[in-house]
């Protein structure tokens, strides 16, 4: 079991490290082992298959053109519940995998109270109490756990109307929609924050490793946990070194009025 003394990624590395290989270079930290990444993308494939086939049925007046992607209306109708089952199974394993690290803590409540600062990007570096996952990520996790449960139950009720009856179907129809719409709204935020919204994040789910700078910026408490170092100090140290380097480059340029070539300004 996950304990506070044993960092989460060490636990998963021990349990699932044998599956696949994650290369962690110098200056990087292991974020997600292969098992987690495999589950994430399996869930993602089923999620989008279920979302697109579901939208074709949800609002044919807007998304009727999605049905041919799945082989036409009857096939879309046939496949959609199976996509849902696939999502539920893959997500169940991801739930088992993540339920420990997603446990809600006081730090998350604190983060949630300060969500405005997070949304406005007021802190260049996240508060020191933000661990492996922040409150927003945990909120989304639990939303998908309970929302997924609603989708699964109502979906099954609508799948077998002969057994459940027309009123159960009619109620499920509304609840299924609401739960799906919440997830649809959430997926935009999820994709945005894991790609262009927070550069350096996407590689966590592809290669499995993140830079130390990403870690002390976005998850300082986790950085402290896995490296045993102070995230703020390391950030300041990196800032000093960068400033020194920039100053050295500037001095060099003053001595050499010709523009220097073949130099990446970001290094």
């Amino acid at each position, binding site marked *: 079991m996950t304990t506070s003394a044993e960092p989460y990624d060490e636990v998963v590395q021990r349990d699932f490290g044998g599956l696949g290989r994650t290369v962690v270079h110098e200056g990087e930290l292991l974020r997600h082992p292969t098992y987690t990444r495999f589950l994430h993308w399996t869930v993602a494939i089923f999620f989008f298959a279920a979302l697109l086939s579901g939208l074709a*049925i*949800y*609002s*044919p*007046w*807007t998304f*009727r053109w999605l049905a041919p992607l799945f082989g036409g*209306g*009857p096939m*879309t*109708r*046939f496949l959609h519940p199976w996509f849902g089952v696939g999502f539920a199974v893959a997500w169940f394993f991801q739930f088992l995998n993540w339920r420990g690290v997603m446990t809600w803590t006081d730090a998350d409540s604190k983060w949630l109270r300060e969500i405005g600062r997070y*949304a*406005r*990007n007021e802190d*260049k*570096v996240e508060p020191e109490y933000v661990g492996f996952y922040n409150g927003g990520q945990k909120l989304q996790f639990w939303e998908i756990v309970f929302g997924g449960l609603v989708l699964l139950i109502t979906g099954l009720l*609508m799948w077998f*109307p*002969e057994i459940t009856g*027309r*009123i159960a*179907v*009619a*109620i499920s*129809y*509304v609840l299924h*929609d*609401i739960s799906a*719409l*919440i997830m*649809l*709204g*959430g*997926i*935009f*935020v999820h*994709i*945005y924050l894991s790609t*262009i*919204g*927070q*550069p*350096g994040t996407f590689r966590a789910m592809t290669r499995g490793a993140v*830079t130390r*700078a*990403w870690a*002390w*910026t*976005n998850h300082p408490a986790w950085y402290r946990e896995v490296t045993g170092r102070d995230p703020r100090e390391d*950030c300041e140290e*990196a*800032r000093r070194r*960068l400033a020194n380097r*920039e100053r050295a*480059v*500037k001095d060099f340029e003053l001595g050499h009025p010709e523009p220097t070539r073949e130099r990446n*300004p*970001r*290094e």
Partner: protein
Amino acid sequence: MATERLFQIRAISGHVGTVPGGGMQHELEVCKLVDVTTCIGCKACEVACVEWNKYPFRETTFNNTYQTMPSTEWNYWNLIKFNEHQREDGTQMWLMRKDQCMHCADPGCLRACPADGAIVQYTNGIVDFNQENCIGCQYCVSGCPFNIPKFNSSTKTVFKCTLCSDRVGSGLEPACIKACPTGCLHFGTKSEMTELAVARATQLREQSGFADAGVYDPSSIGGTHVIYVLHDAKHPELYGGLPADPQIPFSYTYWKWLAKPIGLMIALLGLLAVVFHYIFTGPKRPQPEAREGDV
């Protein structure tokens, strides 16, 4: 279906845009009148229905009743429901009602259907299923207050009474009407049938001692194109579970036509929100950042 060219269309399920060819010609609303008080339970209408629609007689279950089977089926659209009713004075009475699609003016099946063109309502009031467009979701089953659409699990499509749209389109009366030996079934325009039904109900009240006799044409779904004359219009449930106040579930009315599009818009606002977040707030980069263009 051939009938699509014969009849003018009023509404199409899951359809984008307007209904083609609306208002081209004047069409009268058709109506089937079932006077349950003169039904003798001969089941000629049941036989005529399966014969005309070329269905073999299906297997059934015996439930100690005269009723052919417990409910209508995908290939058995017309069923006389039998109820041995004990009246207040202790005498017994057969209540027999011919059960079939009611062809509602506001059809719950059509409202619930997400498949374009799977359910069509004609201007003459007939609600018809086009199985070639049916996706087999069975929402229509849930939307119907009369438990009429039935799923065929081998074709994965839903079937029900067509009010013999193929016959009506050719100027014939429905097969059940043709077969009825007692004159219990009538077919004509809605106004004619309503007039006849009201006259018959009045006769039952004034001359036959059925004080509660009346016409069943429920206004909660805008009226139906199959109307009944009942001995006891105050208790339609006695006639094989005819609902006194048939309702289309909220899910297929306000939710589907109002809340659904609004809900979708709200969810899509998530997309707009992240786009504007990127524009106005910008990304959160790992610190420290090199000062751009200043090296």
